């Protein structure tokens, strides 16, 4: 399937997501104009507050979007509301600052003449300063719009829809077409808005009133429709990652095998557990070794139909690296089968709940199983170890690093926190990293994109899966799957323990039964 075909088959979704994207951007922008303009005007009248107010708004601007969404999650939950609030906060700075600067930069002679002729302060503001500041203010609105179109893609992480959904699913699934199907419309939107606003700039003096009226309309008419329902209607909802929604061993298959149908929203993997804990969603697709299961008192639902494939972790290494440092073979074989499910959950728990640094956890673990740990290797890195962006991967990367540095003269550099399988795998192929911990199931579905027939025949047997990915990766990419570390971090549906106990749900089948009953 080529890109054009992809676009055509996903036409409806693209149009829908573009619509959502425009909606998010415009609504947030309207609120930002509604509050930002008066705030900017006030600051010119109460100048002593301007450094602190502009400073605070500036600091908000520097908070990374995902972190901001994380802060908002406990307060506003998931969905459209936190997305709009986040976009509003990002749009605020250019609007407030440009309003303030635009008014401040009005020729003092004009202001003096206006005052000298007997204009009141409000008359000076509305008849003189504001009209003269309009081009600067408008430039601020334009900047805010372009920022919002960009940030709105990230809002897909809290289940607010928009073109980000395609982008994150695409990244998670190593699907370039899907990334482009989100990225290209987003880029076009940004250019389009910028162009339209650029054209409108000429007529801006006539337009500023309609813009203000429209933005107040949006606030008083549209917002209640979006925000109010989100407070009252709270159906049984599942929060799934973009990756889980799309991959072949994810939600699609789960629906069929268990005949399951649920309300779903897309969530960032980092925010998902918190959203469950905060009762913003009721089911998530977690990982069976995640430390937060213990920390947040979650219950893993039994996969009674054995739907989820095995996800045993192995170091995935470039063939060339192995040939250069054959010692790696022997070294990692010492680690084989040493980390059990329980052990890994404990390590994750220490990181997520006790907030211990991965370095220390890795060191304790290696000492505990009888390895000597030497520290502080310096000099040029011989080997670069990557990891994905969740706890377990950070810990494993540190374990690998300390293992290698303690038992050889090689020095290791870490590149942790790569966002998703695609990015890790691409980094490996492009020789930017030499190895990273990867899961057999992910190898089968995401990296090798195995045919349905093949995967169906081997899926229930972890040995067969491992042998298949080992053989195929070697053949196709010259990559080596070293011996598995032992534990199986497969996908698992989980609920809050309290709710699961109350509803008496132990297995996925029971969940399905409950959902059917409550419909």
């Amino acid at each position: 399937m080529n890109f054009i075909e992809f676009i055509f088959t996903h036409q409806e979704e693209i149009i829908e997501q573009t619509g959502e994207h425009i909606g998010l951007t415009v609504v947030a922008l309207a609120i930002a104009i509604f509050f930002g303009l008066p705030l900017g005007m006030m600051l010119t009248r109460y100048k002593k507050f301007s450094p602190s107010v502009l400073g605070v708004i500036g600091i908000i601007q520097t908070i990374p979007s995902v972190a901001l969404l994380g802060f908002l999650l406990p307060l506003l939950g998931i969905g459209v509301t936190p997305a709009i609030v986040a976009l509003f906060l990002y749009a605020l700075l250019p609007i407030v600052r440009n309003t303030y600067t635009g008014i401040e930069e009005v020729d003092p002679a004009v202001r003096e003449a206006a005052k000298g002729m007997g204009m009141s302060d409000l008359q000076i503001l509305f008849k003189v300063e504001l009209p003269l500041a309009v081009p600067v203010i408008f430039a601020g609105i334009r900047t805010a719009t372009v920022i919002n179109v960009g940030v709105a893609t990230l809002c897909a992480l809290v289940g607010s829809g928009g073109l980000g959904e395609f982008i994150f699913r695409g990244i998670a699934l190593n699907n370039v077409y899907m990334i482009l199907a989100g990225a290209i419309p987003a880029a076009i939107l940004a250019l389009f808005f910028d162009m339209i606003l650029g054209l409108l700039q000429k007529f801006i003096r006539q337009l500023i009133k309609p813009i203000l009226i429209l933005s107040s309309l949006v606030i008083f008419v549209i917002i209640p429709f979006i925000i109010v329902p989100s407070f009252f209607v709270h159906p049984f909802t599942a929060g799934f990652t973009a990756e889980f929604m799309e991959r072949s061993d994810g939600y699609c298959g789960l629906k069929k095998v268990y005949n399951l149908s649920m309300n779903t929203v897309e969530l960032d993997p980092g925010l998902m557990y918190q959203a469950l804990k905060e009762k913003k969603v009721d089911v998530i697709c977690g990982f069976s070794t995640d430390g937060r299961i213990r920390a947040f008192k979650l219950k893993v639902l039994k996969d009674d139909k054995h739907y989820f494939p095995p996800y045993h972790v192995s170091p995935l290494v470039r063939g060339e690296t192995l040939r250069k440092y054959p010692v790696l073979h022997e070294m990692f074989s010492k680690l084989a089968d040493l980390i059990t499910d329980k052990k890994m959950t404990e390590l994750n728990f220490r990181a997520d709940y006790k907030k211990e640094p991965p370095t220390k956890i890795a060191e304790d673990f290696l000492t505990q199983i009888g390895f000597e740990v030497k520290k502080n290797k310096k000099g040029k890195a011989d080997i670069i170890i990557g990891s994905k962006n969740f706890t377990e991967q950070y810990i494993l990367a540190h374990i690998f690093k300390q293992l290698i540095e303690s038992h050889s003269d090689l020095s290791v550099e870490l590149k942790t926190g790569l966002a998703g399988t695609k990015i890790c795998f691409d980094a490996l192929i492009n020789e930017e990293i030499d190895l990273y911990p990867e899961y057999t199931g992910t190898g089968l579905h995401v990296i090798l994109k195995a045919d349905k027939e093949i995967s169906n025949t081997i899926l229930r047997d972890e040995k067969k899966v491992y042998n298949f990915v080992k053989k195929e990766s070697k053949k196709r990419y010259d990559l080596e799957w070293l011996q598995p570390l032992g534990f199986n971090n497969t996908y698992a549906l989980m609920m809050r323990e309290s709710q699961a106990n109350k509803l008496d749900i132990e297995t996925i089948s029971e969940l399905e039964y409950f959902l059917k009953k409550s419909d």
Partner: protein
Amino acid sequence: MIEVLNLTKKFNGLTAVDNISFSVEKGETLILLGTSGCGKTTTLKMINRLIEATSGKVFIEGKNIQDQKPEELRKQIGYVIQSIGLFPHYTVEQNVAIVPNLLKWDKKQTVSRTRELLELVGLPPDDFLKRKPEELSGGQQQRVGLARALAADPSVVLFDEPFGALDPITRRQIQKEFINMESLLQKTMILVTHDVFEACELGDKICLMDEGKIKQIGTAKELIFSPQNDLVINFFQANRFQLELMVLTLKDIMEDIPKKEYKGEAVQDFYENARILDVLEAMENTPQKEPILRIKSCDNKKIFQTTSEGIMTAFYEKRAK
């Protein structure tokens, strides 16, 4: 009429204007003259309350300015500043109509007043009404600024270095028009400047200020010929010769003009109240080598002839005294 009583302004303990008093009669023009920082602009701005006085009182047409709202007060006072401050987003017409609109004049009245004012300041309304300030030269802008200040026909007009930003030629031209503008004759005006020629040219009275205090107040002739202190003497010293020619009239030197008979036609007539500088300038511009001029008394009774040389002789004679 403007009366200023014991006016003082302190900025953070520094005294900018120190207990000054003066009055300006109806139709009179008072010049506040001094170097920068002498307190002249502060004094002016206390009159329309752009700066609030620390102590002292100001009465305009007998009314204490503190008894009115500042905005209401300012609408009744014309105000012209050096940087003009025309509204860049308004046309010339809208700029001139600002105060009438603030006073909620009838639309028709405002339109006809605007046209009338532009005529008055020498800008043909049909050409200029719809222009934007950016399309005007500096001189034209200041004319609009003047028209704007006069729009609601205020009895009092304040000028803060109104011609300071203009080139010398335009400045002289506008100053001349300013003196001859009939609608200004009835106005009580205060004009701030640091230019001694402008002060002598435009002022009925000059108030020379230094360090927030009045050093001398009187006519230009009084300040130049009977200075009360060294500061006043020094202030005019550099331009004394030219200033004396400016403030003296033919009448002042009449008795010292040598009485001689001249042969030939007089090229020009002057009344005795003509300024010496103007007479000499006019004579310079005639083609004759030694032109003869005729001086008439204001009642046309006495007439006699002389030349530039005769006038200069008399002028030096007068200076020696």
